[in-house]
Structures are given as C-alpha cells and as structure tokens.
C-alpha cells in the first residue's frame, strides 16, 4: 500500500497538468511536513513576534505616525538615559559580584577537596535559590536587612553597629545589589559547574610536575581556560538582573527608576506623556537583552571546545 500510493497520486496529478509535471510536486510534498509546525509557529507569531514587532514599529515612529529615528534618539534625554544608566550599573554590579563570588564558591565546592555531601547540598540549594526571586525575595530581605530586620537589629543591639546610621539602606543601590546577589550567586554556581568539572586533573598534575605552584596553576592554566565560560556566565547574570522587575518593585514600592520600573509605570499610566517613547524604552531593553544573550551563546560555544 505504501508503495502503490505515491505513483497513483502522481498519475492523477500529471495527467491534467500542462506545465512541467515534476517540479511543483516535490515542494508540495515537503510543505506537508512543515504543516505540523503550524500550531507552534502560529502561537509564536501571535504572542511573541507580532507583539515585539508592534513595539519595534512604534519605536521608529513619532506620535503622529511618521517614521523617524526621533523617538529612539529621545532615549538620550537625561531622565531616560539616567534610568538606563542606573539599570546597567545595578545589573553590572550584581552580575560582577555574582560572577566573582560564584566562581570562588564553585571552585571551593568542586575542586577544593570538600566532602561530596557539601557539594550536593549547595547544588540543591542553588537550584532553589536561583529560582527564588520576585516578591517573596524582597520580603525575605526586608525581614533580614530592613530598618527593623533581624540582622540589622542584632548588629545594632549586640555588636553596636548601626548600619542604617552608617549610611546603608536596603532600598539603595548596594542594598538592591545585595538582594539580587541572593539569586545571582547560586545561578553562577550552577552555570559554572560544567566548566569547573571540565578542568581535567591531568592539566593540574602536568602543571605541578613542571613546578607550578597552586597560584600559578590557577592564574596561568585554570583561569584562561575558564575565561570564556566565566565571561559568558557574567553576561547571562547581567541579562538576568536587567530584566528583573518584581523584586525591585516590592522592595522600593516602585520608587527606584530602573528601566523596567519606568516601563511598568508607563504601561500603567503613560507617565512619559509619549506612547512612542514607551515603545522605544521597550526596544532598548530588547536590544540590551539580545546583545548580552547573543554574546553569551557565542562564548558558550567557544567554551564547549574544552569540555568534551
């Protein structure tokens, strides 16, 4: 049956056709397989591509419907540029701290000679903590380091250190960075683990047999090998922080003007008094997220050369 069906179709098709019979048949058959992807492609088109396209389209128009770069260029207005600067700084600080501390912690856990249950406990916990973002995380840090947080009170009453009098505030730049670190650090530990596991003991033994000290091995062999992975993870953490909104919203009651917060307010009530500027703001976010994610993928491909 399988063998007889195709010829019978081609016969019935070729007979009435005046145009060359074979070329139009082949693509028609291949197209049928593509049909199976229509539900997914349709879903992606309607709820991923078209919404983004709508915003991009709006970002290159003026409010009266003229196509121009004016709207995108108005992102450089001091207030908007300030928001972008703040977002970039916050993302950079939390990603850099997450990368450095995560690398150190990951190194200690995987290659530091600790018992394996310690590593397993940290890995499980990291899986949970890296997903513990948003509003509850903000609550946890308010209860910890807020004005009446437990750690704040213990430091003040037991150790005599009043961190709020010393200028610290959970709702300031460094407080927010510290809060972000709670999900950035475990994410880094999880992300860098494959690269650390890919460092073969032979390389270390080879370096040691050639007389390298531990520091020399780390600085001259391990770090250069890890560099693409580490940089890639940094970019991923950066993007992760840049898109975060709920944590900062709950912590500061939306009073900290990073880009996602400004965009959120704009959607709520057009605070920028220019709908197209909102589109431009969104497109700027997509560009930054897209750039850091693309670089991450490129670096990950590079890093995978060493992890076979």
């Amino acid at each position, binding site marked *: 049956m399988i063998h007889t069906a195709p010829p019978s179709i081609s016969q019935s098709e070729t007979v009435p056709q005046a145009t060359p019979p074979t070329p139009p048949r082949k693509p028609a058959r291949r197209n049928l*397989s593509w049909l*199976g*992807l229509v*539900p*997914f*492609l349709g*879903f*992606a088109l309607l*709820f*991923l591509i078209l*919404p*983004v396209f*709508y915003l991009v389209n709006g970002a290159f128009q003026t409010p009266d419907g003229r196509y121009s770069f004016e709207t995108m260029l108005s992102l450089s207005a001091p207030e908007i540029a300030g928001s972008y600067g703040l977002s970039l700084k916050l993302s950079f600080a939390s990603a850099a701290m997450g990368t450095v*501390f995560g690398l*150190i912690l990951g190194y*200690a*856990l995987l290659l*530091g000679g*600790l018992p394996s249950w310690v590593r397993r406990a*940290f890995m*499980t916990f990291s*899986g*949970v*903590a890296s*997903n*513990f973002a*948003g*509003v*509850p995380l*903000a*609550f*946890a*840090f*308010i*209860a*910890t380091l807020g004005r*009446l*947080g*437990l*750690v704040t009170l213990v430091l003040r009453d037991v150790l005599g250190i009043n961190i709020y009098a010393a200028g610290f505030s959970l709702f300031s730049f460094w407080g927010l960075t510290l809060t972000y670190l709670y999900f950035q*650090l*475990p994410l880094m530990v999880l992300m860098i683990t494959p690269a650390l596991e890919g460092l073969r003991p032979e390389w270390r033994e080879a370096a040691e047999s050639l007389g390298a000290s531990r520091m020399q091995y780390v600085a001259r062999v391990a770090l250069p090998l890890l560099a693409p992975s580490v940089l890639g993870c940094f970019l991923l953490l950066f*993007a992760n922080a*840049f*898109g975060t*909104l*709920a944590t900062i*919203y*709950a912590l500061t009651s939306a009073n900290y003007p990073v880009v*996602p917060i400004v*965009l*959120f307010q704009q*959607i*709520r009530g057009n605070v920028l008094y220019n709908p197209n500027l*909102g589109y431009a703001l*969104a497109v700027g*976010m*997509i560009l930054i*997220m*897209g750039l850091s994610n693309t670089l991450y993928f490129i670096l990950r491909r590079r890093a995978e050369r060493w992890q076979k």
Partner: protein
Amino acid sequence: MSRRFPILSALIALIGAAFFIVPLIATFNFSLRMKRGELSFEAYRSVFDSDVFLGVLGFSATASLMAILMGVLIVVPTAYWVRLRVPRARPVIEFLSLMPLIIPPVVLVFGYVRLYGSSSILPLTMTEAGTNVLLVIGYVVLSVPYMYRAVDNGMAAIDIATLTEAAESLGASRLRTIVFVIFPNIRSAIVSGAFLTFSISLGEFVITSLLNRPAFGPYLVQMGQDFAYQPAALAIMAFAFTWICMVLMEAFATRKPGQRLLPWRAPRSVTKAKS
C-alpha cells in the same frame, strides 16, 4: 596532593552557606514575632484565615495549570514533529523557544496590551475571559524555554523513529501514536517541565499585574505594603513551595523511561534486575 583539611575551601563554603541561610532564618524568626513578646505562628494563621488568600491562590493555581496544559499541547507535538520529520527546522524552532528569555516579561505584556487592546482585531483585553486567556498565554510563553528543553531532552532519551514505525505498522494513526506511545514515554520529562512552569507562574507579578488579574503575585505586593509580619510568613511559604517544585522537577527530570514513578523505589527494581 596534600591530605590536610581544606581550610580555605571550608571557610569559603561556610561564608556562602551563611549568606544563603541567614536571610531564611531571619525571615522565619521575623514571621513568628507577630504577637508581642512571644514566638507564635499567628502570622501564618492570619494569612490562611483570609478569604482573599485562598481566592487568589485558587485563581493562580488554576491559571498555572491551564498554562501547563496549553504548553504541553503546543510543545509536545512540535518537539516530536521536529525530531521525526523536519529536523531542518530545529534551529528556527529552538531559537523561537528561547526567545522568551530575551524578551523581558514587562516588554511582552506591553506588546499584548497594545496589540490585543480595545482597537485590535482580536480585543482579548476587553473581556474578563479574554484577559484570563491572555494571562495563561503569557505564562505559557514564559515557560516555553524550559518546557521545550525538558520535553526535547525526554525525546532524546527514547527512540522516537522506531517507536513511531512500530506504532504505525500496527495500524495506529498519528494522533494515536503521540497520545498512547510517545506521551507515556516522555511523561516524566513533561512532569518535570510542569513543575518548573508551576513555580514560575504561581507567583508571577509583572504580566499578572499589568493585566489586572486578581492573582497571587499582585496580592503579595499588596500584602507587603499593608502588613509587616504576614509578608515574612508568605516569603517562607514561597521558599518552601519553590523547594518542593524544584525537588520534584529534579526527581522527574532524572527518571529514565519505564522507571517507577516514585524515585526512591527505583533502586529496588535495579537490584532485582541484577540478581
């Protein structure tokens, strides 16, 4: 290699552990202090006593379950079809499935509000039901990167081509093959993706809030503005909830096809097979 105790590593691990655990202890302790002068679970009781809490939790759980169902219905046939018939489309489909990681939720919902608003061909946000549908769709989009990865990994572990040929040679239709042959074999992969989806969407704030839905995320923010101790209790519960979801996700993700459903029963069947 030296055999001495790794002091430096232990110190680093200790500091790391302190950073992770101190906020949890502090939050838990804080959540017990609602009654002045004693430790009690008053804050938890007050949360559970409120009808609003149960209402929003019910709403969010329903929306999350719908999102899981819809996600499975979209992702499973697609991943199957890509592997079986159109492997050339894999880069495109994979790129699309990862795109939600690049588009922040706030941007996504901005597009929805404008595209499906009042002057649209498909004015979903104009009706209550339509907005709920859009909310579920938003959750699906957020979870697609994880769902697709989980399902695709599940399919990599089984031989789809052979299973499909076997089913077809016995006369099964395409739909029947997917539902009765492929689906049971990747069930644990789907469940693993489902738990992740559930943990993402249950407390989701941005999309939910901008679509004005009476769900758990906006409720949490409101609680944070109105009360002092209940938020700490909610944070502890959220952490426990995330933990459970991740443990279950992990358990199902590492389960091989055909293995027992309860992970801790698995070793017994392995030893039985050995003897």
